């Protein structure tokens, strides 16, 4: 019969209309500035630099200014200048650090490739999305002081990923320490052997 399809369709809209008053699951929108949805752990928007110690952020940046992210960044929004001197990194090895590290967030497309290519776990994705400014130049060009955020903050926003990263870094540090200890022991043994050749056991009886 002509019109049956129309009436059935109207039934569907009526069901949805009435249903939204009874079933909270049917309410698909929220009142945004007052209520915010919980972001998924994987959510990403712009990169930040991880620091070990929140009290001395510039002294404990994990970044060693290797410039891999600068090369790999597809829209080329990262600018790095290497330091002249060295300081110990997360594993205790003396490394360079970025004297200048700037990200132009008006160019960045949040693709996460800098995070994937970083061999030092130094750059990670942030979750701050309320970043509107009235100045479209300097306010969107972030320098290393603005980019640096603590490892504790990283744990807060990406707990699973951060735990994995910490475990991996701890293992690397331990391996480095053991290697250093072994090297030191070998060196000491060699020094002892050199200092007192008399103490050396005779090769033949």
């Amino acid at each position, binding site marked *: 019969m*002509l*019109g*049956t*399809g*129309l009436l*059935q*369709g109207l*039934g*569907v*809209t009526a069901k*949805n209309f009435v249903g939204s008053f009874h079933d909270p699951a049917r309410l*698909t929108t929220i009142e945004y500035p007052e209520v915010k949805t919980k972001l*998924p*752990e*994987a*959510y*990403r928007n712009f990169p930040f630099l991880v620091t070990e110690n929140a009290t001395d952020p510039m002294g404990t940046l994990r970044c060693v200014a290797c410039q*891999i992210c600068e090369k*790999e*960044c*597809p829209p080329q929004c990262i600018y790095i200048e290497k330091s002249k001197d060295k300081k110990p990194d997360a594993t205790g090895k003396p490394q360079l650090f970025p004297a200048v590290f700037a990200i132009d967030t008006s160019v960045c*497309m*949040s*693709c*996460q*490739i800098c995070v*994937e*290519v970083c061999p030092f776990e130094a750059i990670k*994705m942030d979750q701050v999305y309320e970043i509107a400014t009235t100045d479209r130049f300097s306010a969107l060009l972030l320098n290393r002081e603005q980019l640096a955020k603590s490892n504790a903050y990283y744990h807060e926003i990406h707990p699973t990923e951060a735990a994995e990263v910490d475990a991996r870094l701890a293992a690397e540090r331990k391996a480095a320490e053991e290697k250093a200890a072994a090297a030191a022991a070998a060196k000491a043994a060699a020094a002892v052997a050199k200092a007192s050749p008399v103490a050396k056991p005779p090769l033949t009886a």
Partner: protein
Amino acid sequence: MSASDHAALSSQLSTPHVGGANVREVHDSFHGDLLEVSMGPHHPSTHGVFRMIVTLDGETIVKLKPVFGYLHRNHEKLGETVTYLGSMPYTDRLDYLSSMTNNWAYALAVEKLAGQAVPERAEYVRVILAELTRLLNHTCLAGFLMQDCGCSGTPLMYAFREREYILDLFESLSGSRMMCNYQRFGGCRVDPSADWLTGAQKLADRYGTFLDEFETLLTGNEIIIARTQGVGKLSPELAISAGVTGPMLRATGVNYDLRKVDAYGVYPRFDFRVPLGDHGDVYDRYMIRVLEMRESIKILQQALAGLPAGPIMDPKAKLRSFRPKAGEAYGRIEGPKGEIGFYLLSDGSPNPYRYRIRPPSFINLTVLEDMCLGHTVADAVIILGSVDIVLGEVDR
């Protein structure tokens, strides 16, 4: 318009070569001047910045010239200046409704070029994501098409409500709703967690119910049938010779689906059918998409049930300093809009020497004039809607 143009078009009118049910008979005695109307580029029904220069005789279209390029951003040249990995996030921005399938097609091309193997789990995850993308794209298309018909709001909002559930899954897996950047050469970037898989399973179980509701609302609706049946007919011969692919081609009755023809990935392991239309009109194109969604749900169920354990990335896959040997490769898959393909020519350097995209919606758009001739302006809007274009992909 010059007098000779007018005469040429008037002579065409006496034998309109597309005969739809709604074509009015035009009498020579009533011929006035032809009117040229520029629809777009800022017209909401053109799905982006697309322009149609329509020549009208009364309300009947006698000539239609599509104009595009307003969103051109040098995508292919850009692909030659960045590394192979660097092109991956740009492919998200081609057809921004189906970034997962764009990623897959590009990854497939590079994997062919580099001879890179893909673990089985990654292949299954790719199928799951591609079918979710198909659900998302077709649901949106049905909503937009109904919006073009004049069903203001309701079907589109229902479609967007369901789309948001799929986008939530994409966001929790890849970190971004639409710009997923998820596939890598030799696998996928992150392994889906058990929670995520439960979520996908729930969605697959529930989606059929939504489709039933959606179909009750639309499929049998007399107004929609009157507006869409017999409108914008495309013959199978023209579709094949113009290189039309995807649901547009299958609506004309041509059995061509790359998932069956190429049997890429793990698709041969799944049991599914390829729906075919037989009129090639707007209604068939709508129905094909609904039926394809039902098949997608079947594939999803099978892929989720058969998902093997194992690594998600090939351990030998290289991320940094990736240089495939010199050669060429063409990777193509069945995207929601048709055959999406990437052609790569490598000279052994970190960047491709030539990077070419075969965009399905651009090629499907080339038959627009043939479908619109003899119809009214209002019909041109729904015919364009049924082609399913995304201007990010058309203009590149």
